[in-house]
């Protein structure tokens, strides 16, 4: 089997802010893959990304990007990383042309032609101040900038949040085209799991500063399932299978971490494939200590 190198590797990374702690975070992103970094707001996604970029200091642990430690040549390594933030970060009075002038003097591999091609593709004006852009246009401008210096790794922090479905779909298409090239990798942080279900190969799920779940997306989806049963049947579900459950007046809904095993054990119960969003919600509930929670309304 071909040995796939990891483009990003985090080993036991910790960062303590006092009221929030990133706790022994370890995961890796293989080359050529799209890794969905999911978690609710405030789970530690942005902090982790900032640590990967060496934008903030970590208390402990190691970070490797392209196989090299970020402690040594982080500035040099960032030459091959394109970054898209949830907010634009460029000054409102700058226009796309001026951003080109800045970036071509920052990146060694800046490709001016490609940048203007992207602007054209995204229908972005070149002489209009970006402060007057809509959220979608701002995001596209960031993507055009991130993709115009031959970056091999694209790190995006909530790039699709707050965008309408049409623009979101356009973005996902761009990301798909980007990863067509074998050595291109994406780390995409989002709490919109629907986008990741369409795009991601790998999934890393963080909650409360801890990695809750990680692995191949298809395997995770294949493994987990939503089991529906009566309330009184809940106690019969094996503890090792049960992630967490939600109950209502109509019955109980349980996330099980081994669908096939659950199907064998409980053939009389309905077990459906789980979506990433459901997996996320049930794991968050478990992390909150709510192995069983009451839901208002129907299931």
């Amino acid at each position, binding site marked *: 089997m071909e040995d796939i190198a990891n483009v990003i590797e985090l080993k036991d990374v910790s960062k303590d802010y006092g009221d929030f702690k990133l706790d022994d975070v370890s995961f890796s992103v293989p080359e050529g893959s799209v890794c969905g970094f999911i978690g609710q707001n405030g789970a530690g996604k942005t902090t982790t990304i*900032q640590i990967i970029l060496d934008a903030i200091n970590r208390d402990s642990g190691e970070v490797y990007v392209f196989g090299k430690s970020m402690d040594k040549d982080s500035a040099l390594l*960032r030459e091959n990383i394109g970054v898209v933030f949830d907010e634009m970060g460029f000054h409102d009075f700058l226009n796309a042309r001026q951003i080109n002038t800045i970036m071509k003097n920052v*990146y060694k591999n800046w490709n001016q032609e490609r940048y203007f091609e992207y602007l054209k593709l995204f229908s972005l004006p070149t002489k209009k101040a970006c402060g007057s852009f809509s959220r979608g246009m701002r995001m596209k401008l960031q993507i055009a900038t991130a993709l115009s210096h031959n970056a091999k790794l694209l790190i995006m922090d909530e790039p699709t949040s707050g965008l309408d479905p049409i623009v979101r779909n356009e973005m996902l298409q761009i990301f798909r085209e980007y990863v067509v090239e074998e050595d291109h990798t994406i780390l995409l942080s989002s709490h919109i799991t629907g986008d990741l279900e369409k795009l991601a190969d790998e999934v890393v799920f963080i909650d409360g500063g801890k990695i809750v779940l990680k692995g191949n997306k298809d395997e995770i989806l294949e493994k987990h399932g939503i089991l529906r049963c009566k309330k009184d049947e809940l106690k019969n579900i094996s503890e090792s299978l049960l992630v967490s459950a939600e109950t209502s007046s109509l019955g109980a809904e349980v996330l099980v971490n081994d669908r096939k095993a659950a199907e064998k054990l409980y053939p009389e119960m309905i077990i459906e494939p789980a979506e990433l969003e459901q997996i996320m919600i049930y794991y968050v509930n478990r992390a909150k200590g709510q192995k069983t929670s009451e839901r208002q309304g129907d299931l």
Partner: protein
Amino acid sequence: MKGLLIKDFFCLKKQLINYGFIIAGVIVISVMFVLSYNFGNIHAGFTEMVDSGQNTGESITIIASNAMLLFMLIPIACTGDITNLVIEDEKASFYKVASALPVSVGRRVVCRFMAGYLFIVLGAAVDLILSVILSSLTDVISLEKYCGVIITFASVMMVYISLFILFTYILGKGKTTYANILPLLIGLLVCICVSFNKIKAFLTDTDDNALMDLYNRTTDFMFHRSYLLLTAAIIISGGAYFTAVCIAKRKRGVA
């Protein structure tokens, strides 16, 4: 690094255009003042004051040179104001973008200092042009003395900018106003300490000429020993830079 300097220029472009008008106005007014001092109404007024014994020729020269020093101060003070640079970067959350660029923290700090110094050089260049014009029109202050004044003002601005940048790193985001005020307070405190005896003598009425003496010493220092201030400014700037780099590396996430 060049790219970040270009970004800084874009940030201050509007301000520089606005100040351009002010500086042009200062040049025009200063030339008009000098012409009037030599041949016009100011000349006539001063002559009358000297003739009637209201003022001596020496004090008239002091008044004129004061006005000219003020003209010199405006361009360098205008161009050296980089407060907006920090405010604009904070407003746009540019520190996020900066942290993703292939530019090290140290270089980002160098860039900020360089931007400040470049604008001082720009102001000093305008001052030099102004001093060539003024010294060729009147003999109140020679070009050599003007150069001393430019070096003094540039040194003061250099210290101010260095401390301002240092305080922006120490205090962190959203504290630009404090970072701006603190160097001014430090400067004021130093001035008071240096001239404490003279100020005390003036306030306690023990020396009637204390203020005039202080003025003469200050101008004499500017005209002849400004290199001392420049040396001090270079040392302070160096210290501020290294401290700023240490703080920025520790804190990260700086523009």
